[in-house]
């Protein structure tokens, strides 16, 4: 845990070192918000109540997307250059180091853009959620990060067996964009899609935290969603651990 923390701090510092990138990132946050806010305003113009909820939902998903910034392509390019041999020598396992580093960097991105999101929340006069709900949002958001980070890094680790595997990662990204609620909350999807999307791990990444914060999930339904999310988080972390254990034993090195 201590080493994890040390790598988190290091990641945070690394991300904060690039000033220009920090400012660019803030502009980027605004553009993405404007895009989604524009679409949903056009769609829900006739229903002020639903529109207000959706605005909150959009802000929540933007915050979560800062958290779920997972540059696994950096790991892939390391593997390509054959640096993975060095990874095995190091005393801390690669998944722990990589995930701690990603988490630290996400924390910086989150802090950097949070003032913008708070300002938007105030500007649109969105209702202030109670403290308990906010806490639940943070916890559920972190669980979602565990799911996404573990699964995505597991996919990257497939590179330990084969050399080219980008299409699968891309397919995973598309499934995530469709079923996670990052753009369309699950309750606006066609019925048949909803009925299975709620059980997929992707739902825990954006939909569950964002919907609970904005009142789209409550009561028994919320409890069920949170239990499922916790299950997926454990499952994903297990997959990652198993992948790393198997992969570090059977390593196909580029040029080896």
């Amino acid at each position, binding site marked *: 845990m201590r080493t994890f923390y040390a790598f988190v701090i290091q990641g945070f510092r690394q991300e904060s070192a690039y000033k220009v990138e920090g400012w660019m990132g803030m502009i980027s946050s605004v553009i993405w918000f404007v895009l989604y806010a524009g679409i949903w305003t056009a769609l829900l113009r006739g229903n002020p109540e639903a529109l207000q909820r959706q605005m909150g939902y959009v802000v929540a998903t933007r915050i979560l997307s800062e958290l779920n910034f997972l540059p696994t392509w950096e790991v892939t390019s390391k593997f390509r250059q054959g640096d993975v041999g060095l990874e095995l020598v190091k005393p801390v396992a690669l998944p722990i180091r990589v995930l701690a580093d990603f988490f630290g960097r996400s924390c910086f991105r989150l802090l950097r853009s949070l003032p913008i999101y708070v300002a938007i929340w105030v500007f649109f006069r969105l209702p202030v959620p109670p403290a308990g709900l906010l806490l639940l949002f943070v916890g559920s958001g972190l669980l979602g990060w565990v799911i996404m980070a573990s699964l995505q890094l597991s996919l990257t680790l497939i590179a330990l067996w084969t050399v080219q595997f980008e299409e699968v990662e*891309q397919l995973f990204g598309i499934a995530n964009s469709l079923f996670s609620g990052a753009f369309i909350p699950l309750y606006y999807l066609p019925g048949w899609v909803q009925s299975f999307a709620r059980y997929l791990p992707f739902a825990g990444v954006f939909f569950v935290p964002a919907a609970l914060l904005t009142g789209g999930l409550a009561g028994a339904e919320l409890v069920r969603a949170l239990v499922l999310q916790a299950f997926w988080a454990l499952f994903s972390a297990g997959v990652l651990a198993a992948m790393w254990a198997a992969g570090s034993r059977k390593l196909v090195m580029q040029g080896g």
Partner: protein
Amino acid sequence: MLRHNFSCYLRMIRAQARSQMQYRLNFAANLVSMVLTYGGQFVSLYWITQRFQAIDGWRLEEIVLLYALAILAWGVCVSFFFSLHGFEDQVRNGTFDRALLRPMNPLLHVLGSQSPISGLGQFVFSILAFVFAFRAAGVSLTPLKLIYLVLTAMGGGMILGGAMVIVAAAAFWTTRTYAFYWSIIYPSRQLVNYPVSIYNRALQIVLTVGVPFAFINYYPAHVLLDRTNRLAYPVLAWSTPLVGLLAITGAYMFWNWGTRYYTGTGS
């Protein structure tokens, strides 16, 4: 001088195209990945229009038309300007020095380092999207529209290319281009995947005169759909080629100004 520059450039990109054609499998893989990405976007659009029928009065096929125009212009941009995406590396590693020392326009030298058929996948895909949109929306393609479509693709490509040139020129001061591209250009391109009329008036003005991405697809789509009368200024619908020329000229002037600040690395 101009003729010399362009003949050098043509010779460079011809060699690049020949080298790209050696990798057929790579092309197929690119096409698959593009089908996946755009296919995913199409599915979310389809689900939204199933639930809400239209976005600000634009039906599914009309928004697909906006996509098709945007992908086509992006294909033109990718074919001729995408080498600028990684320009940061050339500045940081000092390899841009080479372009400055050669008896050729430095920008054309950078642009000549890529194949002119890199956007082939985008072209194939945009044609598929056009066929779907034209059929579903009942668009009759007159010769005039077809000519304007080609000019629009070139104009849109120049608008996006201008943006790439400006972003690349920013590297002369900050040695950063990836961040500019992924934080600003990429999300701004996504903005125009939807009818620009859904945004706040101020943003509509920005997308018209500041970062004129609305000319890539939103305005010219009015010509294809025979609804230029719905625009406050119908002339905007016909302006894409002109705006493209202005954008690339302005960007080139900015680039020239920026090269004066280039000092190489380690100096």
